[in-house]
């Protein structure tokens, strides 16, 4: 119910929303949870396993019960904490994990079957008959499990990622965090203050205490106003620091647009990477419950949340409230409720020596035995002085103590330390280098202690940053001691809940111990304690205590499970912002890209590049027709192709030749100026790294090319070899891949086309290179060929690439030629037996591709020694061969090769096919592949079998060079 005169909501801004289709009213400043409480909605969800009706338990992100689907115009968001979701006009929320409705959920039958659904029961059954698992048992289990639903539609929401850097990151804007930020910011440090809530202040917003003689909320407002005025401080509300990573890097999630109606281009969330020289964790403490029979009934809540709902949101979940605690923290809440006109029936304080409370009955040494009311608490029974009493209440606030929010201090493998005094784990100082912990997160619970430790942490952080924190009078505030007498469970017959979200009861934990799952990790995994969306924030320590008790060990010896990022769950879309669609990887475009698209060429991915697949003519209906035509065109007249994607590295210096001799398996230093040589590079492990050409442009000036795929890899490799092994040698090299556009011109008319473009006949012998002037632009001409025809590659600075491509293609067309794409390029090279990374796929040696003679015997080179290993050579290895089918049948790359007459199997597979194409030149399908002892088997007939695609074709094993084996055309 709404309480007049209380709360920080804006009562001038009414908001309407729906929950499960019913309209409700709330105010700006409400969370969905507070608005539901205002409307007396008690059941908001169903539990995971037993489908028990559940109400709101907490007022924070640690909420285990009140998880709902928030439905937007285009999509829905499952598992949204009603306690975090701010109310906005038109918000549509829906309960989840129930069928057909929240009030009538048929799977609640599980609750009746609970004796048979104890911890780990599924490991003991559903085993027979075996085939029923995938067919029946698993689908049923899957449907019953899970919580909210994804729509299955693409998430069209907008998400962002950002970086921030600062001197000091303060995590949490409660009393400790505010004080720390204030001290640090006044000292001039560059500070970021994050808080997961919409409004900063933490518990000061829920607190009716005084600071410096003024209401805590007013003090908070004054501090925030000062902080907001400082240019060196950035306030980041609605921002949860989710992870502490190495070297001062923190992950943080900002809820940018989740608190308002969706608008185009308004990001839903932003994932921040914050790099901070120092940090202060002031994330407060989380309250925990006490387990007793049916303690999960709607209306049983954590006591601290009652104060928050009252003072921050102006609502009370009950009219007749009782409080059950083992510590004194509920007293202020009781007073607040009473003052607001809520009937506080009793404080059941388990401590026999608990103090009295004026005007409120206190039952000292009392324990709640059971809560009653399936759809909402209506009464409870408690034990006091040996007798059982009943109490009519509609709300019970429980406090089993407070756990410092140590989570982030554990993200770098720090282990928290058990404090007997607090009956809680406290952080290990220094667990995250550069991080100080302050306030309740460090176990300092009073407001005074929080302010003091916040200021102290700031001063220490400033000192580490080389700054002076200056003098500061601490504001006056309450400093009541925190007294707790641990009580984890109330013994009894029924089920008492620990982990509400995953339906883990005290019995489950004791059963785990009974069955030998005595390690805390075993218990967690066997019972699923703490593995639900709330990660056991309010239940893990109690479960640990139960386990410790069941195994006869203390809590410190029992240990704790590990906290890992994220602190609260983060959407995949936020951490993956920017990855959608084409954003996942850079796109690289050729200078000829538009010219190719103008000709309707389909562009295909080649690594990060896009290259034209083929250039269709109007009458052509299949890619094959275009490909065949382009191949014939190159063989008969002339073709033009953009080969700029090849890596190009410019190498210069007196020791360049020596260096190239070291990185190439063959010798480069003997190459004359003005000549080009094919080169093979090995990895240091002896396998082929890459191939390419090496052109000597001058006595100390070289240009080497790499394959498209290996451009970056080769650059890195050369940098390593140079810096690691011969840093003293006189040479420099740089990638010039992007600096030059380069076009292959191939075919019997290639020379004529080049002459036409240059205005003079090229006078280059095979494998020659020379500087040229292309219509006034300085360029380079290489006489090299990847097609087997007389071929040239003409290079110009990138900015002239498109113009040159269009010019060359236009000239080619007047000669009966034209552009050719990747498909034709592939067929042309297969006809010649030229390799690509389809062949040099990483397991291949120079020996395998018949190039062992290219590993010079006269010099050392990278990879030479490892290539000499016995397993790296010899007849048993698959060697590259050509394959020509005996029939017209289609053959496929990916097929395996078998000798005739053998059974098909792993042992009999003698090789495989790497490349295929149809050769219009030879009127046959052709393939390159690898065959065991292949070079000795030329002429043999083998079976090419692709069982995936039903291909079984006899082929003749040949030399890989099908076309012009003597290379007469190349040298023409």
């Amino acid at each position, binding site marked *: 119910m709404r309480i007049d005169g209380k709360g920080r909501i804006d009562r001038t801004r009414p908001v309407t929303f729906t929950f499960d289709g019913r309209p409700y009213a709330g105010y700006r400043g409400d969370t969905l949870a507070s608005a539901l409480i205002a409307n007396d909605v008690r059941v908001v969800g169903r539990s995971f396993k037993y489908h028990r009706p559940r109400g709101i338990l907490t007022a924070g992100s640690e909420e285990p019960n009140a998880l709902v689907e928030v439905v937007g115009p285009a999509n829905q968001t*499952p598992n949204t904490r009603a306690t975090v979701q701010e109310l906005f006009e038109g918000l549509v929320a829906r309960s989840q994990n129930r069928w057909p409705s929240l009030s009538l959920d048929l799977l609640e039958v599980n609750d009746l079957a609970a004796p*048979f659904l104890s911890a780990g029961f*599924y*490991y*003991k059954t*559903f*085993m027979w008959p*075996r085939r029923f*698992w*995938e067919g029946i048992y*698993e689908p049923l289990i*899957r449907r019953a*499990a*899970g*919580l*909210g639903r*994804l729509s*299955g539609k*693409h*998430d069209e929401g907008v998400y962002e990622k950002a970086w921030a850097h600062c001197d000091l990151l303060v995590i949490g804007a409660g009393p400790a965090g505010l004080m720390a930020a204030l001290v640090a910011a006044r000292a001039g440090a560059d500070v970021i203050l994050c808080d997961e809530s919409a409004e900063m202040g933490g518990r000061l917003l829920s607190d009716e205490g005084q600071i410096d003689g003024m209401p805590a909320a007013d003090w908070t407002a004054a501090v925030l106003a000062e902080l907001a005025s400082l240019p060196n401080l950035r306030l980041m509300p609605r921002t949860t620091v989710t*992870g502490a990573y*190495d070297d001062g*890097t923190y*992950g943080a999630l900002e809820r940018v647009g989740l608190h308002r109606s969706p608008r185009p281009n308004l990001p839903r969330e932003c994932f921040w990477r914050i790099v901070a020289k120092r940090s202060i964790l002031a994330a407060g403490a989380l309250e925990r419950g006490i387990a007793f029979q049916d303690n999960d009934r709607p209306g049983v809540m954590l006591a601290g949340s009652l104060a928050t709902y009252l003072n921050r949101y102006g609502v009370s979940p009950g009219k007749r409230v009782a409080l059950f605690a083992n510590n004194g923290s509920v007293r202020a809440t009781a007073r607040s409720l009473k003052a607001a006109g809520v009937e506080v029936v009793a404080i059941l304080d388990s401590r026999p020596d608990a103090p009295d409370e004026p005007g409120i009955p206190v039952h000292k040494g009392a324990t709640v035995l059971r809560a009653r009311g399936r759809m909402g608490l209506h009464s409870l029974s408690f034990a006091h002085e040996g007798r059982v009493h009943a109490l009519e209440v509609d709300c019970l606030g429980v406090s089993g103590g407070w756990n410092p929010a140590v989570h982030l201090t554990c993200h*770098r*493998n720090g282990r928290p330390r058990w404090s007997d005094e607090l009956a809680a784990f406290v952080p290990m100082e220094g667990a995250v280098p550069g991080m100080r912990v302050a306030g309740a997160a460090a176990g300092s619970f009073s407001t005074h202690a929080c302010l003091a430790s916040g200021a102290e942490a700031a001063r220490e952080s400033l000192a580490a940053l080389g700054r002076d924190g200056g003098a500061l009078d601490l504001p006056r505030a309450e400093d009541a001691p925190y007294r707790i007498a641990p009580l984890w469970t109330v013994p009894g017959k029924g089920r008492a809940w620990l982990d509400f979200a995953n339906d883990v009861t005290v*019995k489950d934990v004791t059963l785990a111990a009974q069955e030998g799952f005595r*390690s805390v990790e075993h218990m967690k995994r*066997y019972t699923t304690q703490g*593995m639900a*969306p709330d*990660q056991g924030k309010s239940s893990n320590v109690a479960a640990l205590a139960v386990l410790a008790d069941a195994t006869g060990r203390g809590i410190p010896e029992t240990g704790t499970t*590990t906290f*890992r*990022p994220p602190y609260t*769950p983060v959407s*995949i*879309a936020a*951490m*993956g912002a920017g*990855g959608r669609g084409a954003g*996942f990887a850079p*796109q690289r475009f050729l200078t000829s890209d538009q010219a190719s698209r103008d000709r309707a060429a389909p562009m295909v*991915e080649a690594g990060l590049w896009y290259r034209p697949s083929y250039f269709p003519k109007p009458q052509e209906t299949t890619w094959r027709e275009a490909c065949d035509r382009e191949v014939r065109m190159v063989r008969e007249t002339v073709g033009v192709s953009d080969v700029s994607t090849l890596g190009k590295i410019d190498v210069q210096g007196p020791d360049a030749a020596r260096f190239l001799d070291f990185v190439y398996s063959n010798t480069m230093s003997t190459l004359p100026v003005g000549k080009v040589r094919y080169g093979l590079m090995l*990895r240091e*492990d*002896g396998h082929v790294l890459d191939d390419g050409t090496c052109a000597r442009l001058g006595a100390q000036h070289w240009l080497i090319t790499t394959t498209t795929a290996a451009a970056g890899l080769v650059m890195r490799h050369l940098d390593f070899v140079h810096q690691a092994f011969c840093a003293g040698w006189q040479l420099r090299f740089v990638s010039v891949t992007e600096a030059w556009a380069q076009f292959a011109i191939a075919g019997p008319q290639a020379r004529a086309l080049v002459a036409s473009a240059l205005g003079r006949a090229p006078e280059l012998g095979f494998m020659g290179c020379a500087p040229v002037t292309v219509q006034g632009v300085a360029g380079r001409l290489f006489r090299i060929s990847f097609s087997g025809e007389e071929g040239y590659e003409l290079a110009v600075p990138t900015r002239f690439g498109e113009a040159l491509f269009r010019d060359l293609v236009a000239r080619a067309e007047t000669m009966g030629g034209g552009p050719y794409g990747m498909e034709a390029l592939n067929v042309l090279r297969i006809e010649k037996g030229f390799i690509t990374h389809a062949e040099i*796929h*990483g*397991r291949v040696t120079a020996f395998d591709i018949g190039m062992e003679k290219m590993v010079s015997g006269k010099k050392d080179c990278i990879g030479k020694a490892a290539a000499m*290993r016995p*397993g790296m050579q010899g007849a048993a290895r698959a060697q590259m061969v050509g394959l020509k089918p005996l029939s017209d049948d289609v053959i496929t790359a*990916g097929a395996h090769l078998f000798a005739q007459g053998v059974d098909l199997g*792993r042992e009999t*597979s003698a090789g*495989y096919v790497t490349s295929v194409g149809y050769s219009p030149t030879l009127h046959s399908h052709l393939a390159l592949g690898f065959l065991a002892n292949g070079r000795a088997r030329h002429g043999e007939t083998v079976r090419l*079998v*692709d*069982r*995936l695609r039903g291909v079984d074709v006899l082929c003749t094993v040949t030399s890989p060079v099908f076309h012009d084996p003597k290379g007469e055309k190349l040298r023409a």
Partner: protein
Amino acid sequence: MRYSGWKVLAQGLRGNTGWAPAWRDPAPKAAYDAVIIGGGGHGLATAYYLAKNHGLTNIAVLEKGYLGSGNIGRNTTIVRANYFLPGNSEFYSHSLKLWEGLEAELNYNVMHSQRGLINLFHSDGQRDAFARRGNAMINQGDDAVLLDREGVRELLPYLDYDNTRFPIYGGLLHPRGGTARHDAVAWGYARAADRRGVDLIQNCEVTGIDVVDGRVTGVQTTRGAIRARKVGMVVAGRSSQVAAMAGLRLPIESHVLQAFVTEGLKPVIDHVISFGMGHFYISQSDKGGLVFGGDLDFYASYAARGNLPMVEHVMEAGMTLMPMIGRARVLRSWGGIMDMTPDGSPIIDRTPVAGLFVDAGWNYGGFKAVPASGWCMAHLMATGESHPVAARFRLDRFATGHLLDEEGTGSQHNLH
């Protein structure tokens, strides 16, 4: 105590008070016929098959922490037999066959779910490479189906077919591939080994390996010395440290691999899916969490935790491939320590120390190997000879060049 649905019912009626411990908690004896260092999946499976297949029951498994505390408890649970190279092919094929009978074998529901694994490909070249692999799988006697784009769309309608950076050309479907409940595998083997008399000794860290005249004689532990003529090191994640106790250096570098799980969701992904261009794979657990991961963080680490660059890369890959998962929230991330070898394949072999055996180097494919690894390691320890399906997992293959490099990425440890 035999597990069954009837037993669950009967115990339920009795308040579940009669369940016996899944395994004993014995104190270590002074001597065993054989000792296995490491109570993870592989070590427990080794112990089980030593007892079952070879009748060796006077044996102990020594575990530093709790049973199943290594990578068996922190993987992404994928079970598959989809390898190309002879050596790997027959081994994983054998493993998958063992998986298919594992519930009955162990009397423990490990929830092996053959929901189908799909490796997506994104270019003609990738299709050919996957076809080559699929044909190898069929040649081995396993199953594989090559799907075109429409075939993939039929099974996985929620992928982004229109805007993703690397278009989906098709996929290689491995129908018998799937997942299993990882912890249950450790517990199932542990319980079954215990029932055959194997001593499972937890909180017992091996601090030294005793070698006399080139022969192993036992181990030193935090719970005293234990004599044994045969010792198996089955400690992936700590292989180098344990081997060093016997003076051995292994061809292993340890790396961190992160994995992620989301909050529980109603069923939305029914297969195991692997992206061909971005190191991303995903499945949905029976509890409803999306379980996914990507590549290594790529630096040597024993921290069992990772950093944001790979976290973000994995999420970005998920968003380009299947943007429908965007609103699922990552609940937890963690890291495992991977034994990375120079060819990406494991080692099950003798060592230069007589009586000392090594099972290591599982890179990040160890989970699916658990049954066959245990089977073959048990065979090796019992007979002194390599099992035929693990015969190529030699320790000396790097020196000799008889490599098993599926990825073709070479001897750099972290590239597999």
